[in-house]
């Protein structure tokens, strides 16, 4: 088991667990081009809504940051440039994403390679920059993020990992 130890504890660690109700998460609707995400923003929903492109940079995963996560939603289809998520150069992408195509039979699945992929680049319709995509990235070790979710493409999907 891995869980950060130096963070503010919201629960007392009771063996039966804890509960919460009515929680609202942070929503980051970053206009413009580049937004550096912070460790203290973990749990936020990050919106892609700028048709001319947007970039989110993930924070470096520190020793007490394993388990932080960010969710992403594409609410407006990009039309130029790219919707991009970059890791810190010392962190890599694992897991995978389902590319759902609006063209029958053109759906596909792509995965991060655990070792060299540092970016998810949705820079064309075939790469998944259409509205409707939603996915989550979680820091699972000092060097890796894992991704889960889906993008929306048309027609045939191409690999957005690099």
């Amino acid at each position: 088991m891995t869980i950060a130890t130096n963070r503010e504890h919201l629960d007392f660690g009771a063996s039966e667990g804890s509960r919460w109700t009515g929680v609202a998460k942070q929503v980051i609707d970053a206009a413009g081009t580049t937004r550096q995400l912070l460790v203290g923003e973990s749990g936020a929903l990050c919106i892609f809504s700028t048709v001319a492109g947007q970039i989110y940079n993930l924070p470096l995963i520190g020793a007490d940051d394993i388990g932080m996560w960010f969710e992403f939603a594409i609410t407006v289809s990009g039309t130029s440039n790219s919707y991009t998520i970059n890791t810190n150069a010392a962190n890599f992408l694992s897991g995978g994403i389902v590319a759902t195509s609006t063209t029958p039979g053109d759906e596909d699945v792509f995965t991060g390679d655990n070792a060299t992929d540092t970016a998810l680049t949705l820079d064309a319709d075939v790469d998944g920059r259409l509205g409707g995509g939603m996915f989550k990235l979680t820091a699972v070790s000092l060097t890796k993020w894992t991704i889960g979710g889906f993008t929306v493409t048309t027609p045939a999907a191409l690999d957005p990992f690099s």
Partner: protein
Amino acid sequence: MTIATNRESITHGSPGGARVRGLARQVIDGAAGTRVLLPSDSGALCMFNVAAGSQIYTLPAIGANDVGMYFDFSVTVTGTTTYSIDATSATIGGGLLMASTTPNESDFIPATLASTVSIDLDAVLTGENAGGYFTMVAIDTSHWTVGGYAVGVGTMLTPFA
């Protein structure tokens, strides 16, 4: 609304709700063999990442105050034996998008709420490839529901048993 009542409440239940940011969740990086999940592990991200070792997660029994607990699962390394999730005294409903890298072979496969007791990702056709991601939530004292996707190649088959 159903929510456990005897658990430690980390909100005050104010009618306006609560807010939180900067959270870190538990990550369970499973070794080969069986890992019994606990109610207090609820909310964790459970990894399938041991290619050659059979990796099994056993879900906890759902007590009266455990409805709503949930676990996420991520396949980050393609398996070569078995990745499995076993319900104990409960059954599993919902279903998985079985995403195939072969064109036109993806399929949605439902679990059978009355009888499914395990999810077995034990071949490329049943979704043991890297990239899978799904969530299981305890919806009452005898049932889990699953949603998300598993990844494979070719004509996908049911992972439910």
